[in-house]
């Protein structure tokens, strides 16, 4: 999402970089750096240091070890990773096809406009209201549940059967499956927004060249389009993964905190230290930052590879 910086016209002021002057130049950004230092870096560093301290303030690796071996924490990480991977793959695929439909797939023009602007809207529509919307739609007495429930058949023997009772069929909105459906509501639009520019960057000539050489549609996608697109696709999927992994509000509002995600567990820890000591909570939070940092590193690398193709 971050564009590469544009070159700045070198100014006489900036060129005259005597040591004193260049030091003076940094004074202008000092308030910003001070603000960031106090309210972003300091809190993060405190978590980081706390993760490696015991309650007396001595250095230890025990917190990390305990967190890694605690089955409850382990389960939270597995659940969080599971839902992030599932929603980023499912949302990624769905989003890719929708983006395909509205860019090079020639879907009707009015549909394109609606889908594109709704993607911008839905990608920003998360948190508590999203959970409410899905409870109203797929909850026990929700719109779809009731609608499907009313489809009943009377057999000749006079027994009424209602085959579409999704809750009797084992579906439960307040579970991992339900949360997945919720997350998809902002995941696939996010994919549409991030992958559409890459799809538009596919040149018509490449397709024509492939067809002239006798390539089929499958061959074109497999041998030409996908190799060009894969850094974008992977990069966007990482973005989806990260947005699901860090999400808290939707899960909290939907399940009331009864689903064991890392974010929910950290929330419980803030409310009232559910782990043995506060430093384990820091280690728990540190784990999240590590996962996110890996995501960002991968995203940055892939982003560089993407820019090369799309600009050419």
């Amino acid at each position, binding site marked *: 999402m971050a564009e590469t*910086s544009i070159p700045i016209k070198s100014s006489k002021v900036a060129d005259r970089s005597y040591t004193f002057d260049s030091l003076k130049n940094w004074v202008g950004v000092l308030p910003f750096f001070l603000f960031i230092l106090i309210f972003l870096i300091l809190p993060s560093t405190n978590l980081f240091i706390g993760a490696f301290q015991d309650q007396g303030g001595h250095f230890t690796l025990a917190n990390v070890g305990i967190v890694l071996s605690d089955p409850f924490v382990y389960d939270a990480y597995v659940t969080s990773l599971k839902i992030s991977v599932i929603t980023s793959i499912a949302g990624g695929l769905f989003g890719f096809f929708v983006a395909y*439909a509205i860019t090079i*797939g020639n879907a009707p023009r009015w549909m394109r406009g609606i889908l594109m602007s709704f993607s911008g809207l839905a990608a*920003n529509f998360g948190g508590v209201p999203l959970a409410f919307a899905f*409870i109203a739609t797929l909850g026990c007495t929700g719109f779809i549940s009731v609608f499907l429930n009313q489809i009943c058949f009377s057999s000749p023997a006079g027994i009424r059967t209602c085959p579409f009772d999704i809750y009797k069929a084992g579906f439960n909105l307040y579970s991992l499956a339900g949360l997945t459906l919720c997350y998809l509501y902002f995941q696939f639009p996010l994919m549409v927004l991030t992958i559409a520019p890459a799809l538009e960057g596919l040149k018509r000539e490449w397709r024509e060249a492939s067809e002239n050489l006798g390539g089929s549609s499958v061959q074109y996608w497999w041998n030409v389009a996908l190799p060009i697109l894969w850094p974008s696709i992977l990069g966007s999927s990482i973005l989806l993964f990260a947005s699901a992994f860090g999400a808290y509000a939707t899960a909290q509002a939907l399940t009331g905190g009864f689903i064991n995600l890392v974010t929910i567990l950290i929330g419980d820890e803030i409310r009232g230290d559910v782990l043995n000591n506060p430093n384990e909570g820091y280690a728990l939070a540190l784990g999240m930052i590590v996962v996110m940092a890996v995501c960002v590193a991968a995203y940055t690398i892939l982003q560089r590879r993407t820019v090369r193709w799309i600009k050419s």
Partner: protein
Amino acid sequence: MKTKNMNLWALLWAILGMLYFFVPLYGTFDFSLRMKKGVLSFLAYQVVLSDPQFLASFRYSATMGIITVIASVIIFLPTVYWIYIRLPQARPVVEIISILPFIIPAIVFVFGLIRTFDRPPLELTMTPTKTDILITMGYIILSMPYMYRAIDVGMRSIDVRNLTEAAQSLGSNWFQILFNVILPNMRIAVLSGALIVFATVLGELVLGEFLVRPALGPYMVDVGRDEAYQPAAMALMAWGLTWVCLGLISIFGRGNTSEQLTGR
């Protein structure tokens, strides 16, 4: 024949996408009208809008939103401006810092914030006023990616150097240059940033919940726990508000919104 097949395939996905958008939206709308048994009514909306607690929390979050917008502009505008005219070499660092809130999950950030400032010397969680200061700082950080980017994009579209020199030659001081010359010239970019920041603060749950302030997010969670129909009404109103904010941005920005909205 081949192209026709492709169209159907695209059409299928476009229709599926529209269904995923609209079915929950319609379901929520339908559900929100059923509070009074047997008839469709806007009772749920009336109940929500006349709840004094709703009004109080909305007022609190809206006030916080406005304060956050103003404080963000005061912090980020001089910084971005300074980077443009004096310190281009600081740009990569500041750009990375500006997206840090996307990388650090909000809940982790709040955790660090509470564990850092709930103890001496500052003890910022002890009184409501002090907590309000802390929560404002939190909102500024959480919405920084949007505001920083909006200001950066705005600054890119104007000729900062010439404007500065013109203002200087007319005898302006730095404050006048920033707030009487630069800011008015990029008001559209700042305004769209302000709208996103405002919407973010209104919908924010984590800070309000864990710093225990009467914000809109925690109020909605509470209502969601106890009531059935009001949450649906609130979800739809939140949807409407987001829609209005984004609509205003795209009117101001002439369709350049998508690049600012990709991160969440």
